[in-house]
Every structure is written in structure tokens, then in C-alpha cells.
């Protein structure tokens, strides 16, 4: 769900504007009760998605899982209330999700993170430290492949012992090794004098 070098007109709009528009539209969709307006908006959202030249292959899996959930919702709502109401709910959700995917697929991951950090920056006033937030996010991205490797190793090792499907036998070693990695990294950062606190550090 990352914008892979999208150069359409949507990619050139600033992420903050796209987010704001998505937020307002999502709320507006719930205030509209005419199914023909909702259908028109749904068609417009498809047009936006197509005109933004997004990579449609990236959308295949999310759309399949979306379709399964929505067909269940449609049938349940249709039985409980009436079918027009079910159609409205499904159109609303589809429009909202297609627009959300259009924003996701035309915004670079770095820009999205930067926007989140801007949104989180008022936390400074209540004692939050933006540098630590940025550190946590980037460190997590760096640790994911490592933890995935550890998880695969643990599962393979336990599989060899016939315990591959035993969640306890898999989770305990995974947690212990995660804690070790955290300890070692914290020590390494400490040894290199990494300091993200705003006040000067005294030794």
C-alpha cells in the first residue's frame, strides 16, 4: 500500500490537503442519504482512482477481503432493514475505502510519516518528545526484518521438535530473544552516547 513512484496529479497535492479532504468527505458521506447521490460519488471515486494511475495490482487483495466483508454486511442489513438501506451502506463504505486507497497509493510513505509527526507535534506541550517518536517509528521499521527472521528461526526449530504448532513453545523463545535484542540495542545506543533529550546531558 505504498505509492510506488506515482506521478499523477494526486501525488502532487500536499498530503495534509489530501488527508483533510478525505476526513471531510468521510463525514459528509454519512450525512447523505440519497442512494443516487451515493452511487454518483462511488462512480466519481472509481474515476479518481483510475485517473490517478495507481498500481491496481496492489489493490487486489484488500478489495477481495473488502468484498467478502461487504457482502456479509449487505445481506445482513438487507434482511434486518431493507435492501435500499443495505445498498446505501455498502456504497458509502466502498466510496470511502476507494478514496482512502487513492490517498494511500499516491502519497509517499515518508511524506505520510512526516504528516503524522506534524500532527503529533503538539504532544511536546504535554511532555512528549518528538525526537523519541521519530526514533521509535524508524527503529521499528529497521527491526521488522530482524524480528521476522527470529520468528521464522524459532518456528523452524520448534517444528523440528514437533512443536511447530504449539504457540507457547514458539512465543516464549520469541519474546526472550526480542528482550535480548532490545537490551543489546539500548546498551549500544548508551555506549555511543545517543541522546535525544532536549536538555544537555551531564556526566
Amino acid at each position, binding site marked *: 500500500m505504498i505509492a510506488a513512484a506515482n506521478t499523477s496529479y494526486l501525488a502532487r497535492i500536499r498530503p495534509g490537503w489530501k488527508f483533510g479532504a478525505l476526513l471531510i468527505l468521510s463525514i459528509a458521506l454519512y450525512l447523505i442519504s440519497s442512494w443516487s447521490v451515493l452511487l454518483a460519488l462511488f462512480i466519481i471515486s472509481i474515476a479518481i482512482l483510475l485517473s490517478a494511475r495507481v498500481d491496481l495490482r496492489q489493490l487486489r487483495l484488500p478489495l477481495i477481503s473488502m468484498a467478502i466483508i461487504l457482502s456479509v454486511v449487505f445481506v445482513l442489513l438487507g434482511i434486518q432493514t431493507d435492501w435500499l438501506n443495505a445498498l*446505501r451502506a455498502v456504497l458509502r463504505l466502498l466510496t*470511502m475505502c476507494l478514496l482512502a*486507497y487513492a490517498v494511500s497509493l499516491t502519497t509517499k510513505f515518508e511524506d505520510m510519516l512526516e504528516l503524522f509527526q506534524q500532527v503529533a507535534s503538539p504532544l511536546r506541550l504535554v511532555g512528549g*518528545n518528538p525526537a*523519541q517518536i521519530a526514533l521509535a517509528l524508524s*527503529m521499528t521499521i529497521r527491526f*521488522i526484518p530482524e524480528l521476522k527472521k527470529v520468528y521464522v528461526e524459532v518456528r523452524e526449530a520448534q517444528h523440528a521438535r514437533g512443536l511447530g504448532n504449539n504457540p507457547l513453545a514458539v512465543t*516464549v523463545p520469541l519474546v526472550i530473544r526480542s528482550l535480548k535484542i532490545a537490551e543489546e540495542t539500548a546498551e549500544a545506543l*548508551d555506549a555511543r552516547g545517543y541522546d*535525544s533529550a532536549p536538555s544537555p546531558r551531564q556526566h
Partner: protein
Amino acid sequence: MSRNPSSSQTKNTVYIAVFAAMIAAMGLLPPITLGIIPVPITLQTLGVMLAGALLGPWRGAMSSLVVVVLAIAGLPLLSGGRGGLGVLLGPTGGYLLGWVFGSLVIGALFKYWVLRRTGNTARFLAGLASVVIGGIGVIYLCGVPWTSVVTGLDLGTSLLGSAAFLPGDLFKAVVTTLVALTVHRSYRGLMS
């Protein structure tokens, strides 16, 4: 290790990041299938429960929040390779936000209640109750009304839909309790 505040703050950040990565890794691998429960179990919410039970309220909630933020920003970290803004706005977005509050509640209960119990049985029961309250109660409390608001289904139907995941979640709560108590026994002071 925590001789001055800045070093302990960095240490906290490292723990948050490593556990967030663990939650993400648990969603990247194919789920474990068990004989007793028909639905395959993804370990991702197990990671969310564990983050709270092991790191305490604040750091646990932050770990979950980091995963949610990265997923919403576009990384395909959620089980089944899902990610992006659509996940938050869709019918199951509430469960995702529930993770943050779920690990917060589990962490608080573990820190101030479970770890102060003595005796193995009392600890296990208190631990299980905490994980069920935070990891199932709180997460469903965020997820069920969200589904109902977003889709227009009534609360009862929405609750019934989530009941399909209850056996798996109860099983994960038992696993979380056992793992957390085992790890706390060898790593004392994990929450201090």
C-alpha cells in the same frame, strides 16, 4: 542502566520499537492452525496482548500505536498483508484502535495488580482476567460499535459477528498469560 533520565528514555524507546516490530512480524507469517479451533489463529493480537503484559501500560500502548501508525501510513503490516488508510476507515478499523487501549489496560492491570499477587494460581487467574478484560473486552468495546456505526448494522449483529473470533481470542489470552508470567519470572523488574 538508567543512570540518567535521557538514557532510560532511549531505553524505553528501544523496547517500544522492538515489541512493535515483534507485533508486525507476528502478522507477516502464515497463521498457526490448531485442531480444536476451526479458524486459523494469527498471532498478531497475541503480540498486542503481550506488549501490554510485558512492558506495562505506557510502553505497551506505544508499541501497539507504532504498529497502527505504520500500518495506516501504508506498510502492509497487518495480518494478510493489509495496510493503508482504507483499513482504518473500513468496518474493522475500531479493532485496530482498540489495540492501543487494550494493551494500555492489560499493562496497567499487570503492573498494579497481577504482579503483586503471590502464589501461582492467584497470579495466573489474575493474569488471565486482565488479558481477557483488556485484550478481549476493551478491543471488542472499540471494534463492535465502530462496525455498527460504519455499516449501519445494529450492535447485536455486530457483536454476534465478532463472536466468531472469541474462541481464538480466549485461547490467545491463555497463551499470553502463561508466556507473560513465565517471562516475568526470569526478567524481574521489566516494568520498573
